[in-house]
């Protein structure tokens, strides 16, 4: 699938894995390796206190399936519906010798625990003069396409990217998902790990062994010279598709997948623009103070003299996510819209 031109060579066998399986792999292998890694959240095992089968869910998307039978309820902890208490517990535990991976079933739920994320976990190290570390991961599902409506389909990565002290990871394929999750768990800072729910069943070859993908290093799934397309998460496959279609027309696109949006590999973007002089940024999030204009702003400041055309951002509109499929499909940036934006900057 994706061409990971700058990925580390991983020894050993690979196999075709879904995005879901890749994350599960990373969690399980890290939990085996490091007894301080724990997983907590609502239904991460499922069936707590219930008469039926244990590990009944393994997360509502099945990402943590099988962990509880292997590691027990002491390390795979089902919680009440109390997100502030979940995130707070993870942050407090991270300061005291554990490496918790806390799940927000839908990242839309940051609304009920945002303080513990941005005012507590994110700021500890700075407020405390560098004397604490908070090695925690918050996993959350993002994005639309699932017809889940306005309160279960948001992206919200821009909100956490805004926050100093947080790292924000947005894998676009199974290979990256595993390597980035391993890095997230081993990282000593709080990491927001955003899984796009529409990608759980996408597959690619993934090494069976453990490997890390360092933060702040973009991937280059397509290389080209006419237009730079920066896309993240679920937008990456669409950008690739657009690039492949445009290639047939003779338009050569350089597709950049930053993989982590905080830290952001702005060097990779700026280098690409030196060659292409044209930039399209694709983001499923809302436009105002969002990642697309963030990247556009960086380039307008640092890459201005390379630019030969206006920057184009392709984002969701400034609306909540609508429920009806026709509306939601129109809401989420499509391959067609990416193609149109590229043509636009080429025509310019």
């Amino acid at each position, binding site marked *: 699938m994706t061409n990971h031109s700058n990925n580390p060579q991983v020894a050993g066998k690979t196999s075709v894995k879904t995005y879901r399986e890749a994350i599960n792999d990373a969690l399980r292998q890290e939990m085996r390796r490091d007894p301080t890694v724990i997983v907590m959240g609502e*239904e991460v095992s*499922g069936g707590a206190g*219930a008469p*039926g089968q244990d590990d009944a*869910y393994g997360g*509502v998307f099945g990402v943590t399936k099988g962990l509880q039978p292997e590691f027990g309820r002491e390390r795979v902890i089902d919680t*009440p*519906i109390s997100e502030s208490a979940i995130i707070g517990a993870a942050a407090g535990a991270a300061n005291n010798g554990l490496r918790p991976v806390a799940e927000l079933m839908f990242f839309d739920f940051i609304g*009920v625990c945002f303080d513990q994320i941005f005012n507590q976990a994110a700021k500890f190290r700075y407020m405390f003069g560098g004397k604490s570390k908070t090695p925690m991961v918050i996993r959350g599902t993002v994005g639309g396409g699932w017809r889940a409506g306005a309160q279960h389909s948001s992206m919200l990565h821009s909100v956490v990217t805004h926050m100093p002290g947080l790292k924000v990871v947005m894998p676009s394929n199974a290979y990256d998902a595993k390597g980035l999750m391993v890095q997230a768990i081993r990282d000593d800072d709080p990491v927001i790990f955003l899984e796009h729910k529409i990608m759980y069943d996408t597959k690619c070859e993934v090494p069976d062994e453990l490997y890390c993908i360092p933060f702040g290093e973009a991937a280059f799934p397509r290389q080209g010279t006419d237009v730079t397309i920066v896309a993240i998460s679920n937008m990456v496959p669409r950008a690739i598709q657009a690039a492949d279609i445009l290639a047939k027309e003779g338009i050569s696109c350089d597709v950049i997948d930053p993989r982590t949006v905080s830290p952001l590999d702005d060097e990779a973007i700026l280098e690409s623009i030196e060659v292409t002089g044209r930039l399209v940024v694709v983001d499923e999030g809302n436009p105002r103070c969002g990642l697309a204009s963030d990247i556009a702003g960086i380039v307008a400041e640092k890459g201005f003299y390379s630019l030969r055309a206006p920057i184009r951002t392709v984002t969701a509109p400034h*609306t909540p996510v609508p429920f009806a499929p026709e509306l939601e499909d129109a809401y989420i940036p499509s391959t067609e819209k990416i193609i149109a934006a590229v043509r636009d900057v080429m025509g310019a």
Partner: protein
Amino acid sequence: MPYQTEFLLRAYRTMKTIREFEERCVKEFEGGNIPGFTHVSNGQEAVAVAACIDLSDKDIIGSTHRGHGHCIAKGCDVGGMMKEIMGRATGLCKGKGGSMHIADIDKGMLGANAIVGGGPPLCNGAALAAKTLGTKNIALSFGGDGSANQGTVLEAMNMAVVLKLPHIFIYENNGYGEGTAANYALGCESLTERNAGFGMPAECVDGLDFFATYEAIKTAIERARNGGGPTSIEAMCVRFDGHFIGDPQLYRGKDEIKLARQQQDCLKKFRERVIAEGWLQESVMNEIDETTAVAIEQAVADALAAPHPDPATDLLADVYCSY
């Protein structure tokens, strides 16, 4: 007879409408006609109807992700609901909300809510408006056993007591929050006692018994209307289906659902009671069953024929009143 016939008929018709609606939702979902994910409330009808049957359109309810029953009990049009759930332009929310966001302000239905614990703070506001404007209207929020552990709900209870708001907190304790047992997630022995600790009258009722539930809520409504502040009612009930439609429900006990459907069916209990008491005749209820089935059939047919929204005009509309 302690209840008017009209009242009993309405109660039965509404409960039956909910049951029929929810079972049809399951079917339509499985048939691919309902997008997204959907939570049905069959098994819990008595609570919804007992809570809403005495309310006017000016009284406000706040609902949950499992809101269809509350909507129907509050008088929302089932046709508009089915269209909404199917994402049609003529749905109650023009297809923009879907199952988890049905609202109908004209009916005093302040919205389902896809955020667990989202509703009770909002219902405090409805109650505050009633109190400030002196309307004597009340607010009533629904929540599950799982929602009771959400901080927003807990602080809303305290606020309601402090401001003496006419707000009834209904907790539908169906034993589960998704696949987690209520008993696990609630650290306390009794939710009702925990809520009483907040300084409001709190009662636990058999939510399968329409009459018991109705009487308790009726007392609470009277108290609220008369300036007596909030009440907590925990209604013990049963979820006949999965957390969402399609949930394999591995966490449930062997035969748990089968037995519940047989022995813990609030509709059956209602029928048995009214027949035993001689309050209603079986034939009248059978007739209601039939007309209800027809009405839901019609709602589905209408919904399936209803127009889809048009992105060109609808996607950007109604974010703001003006911008």
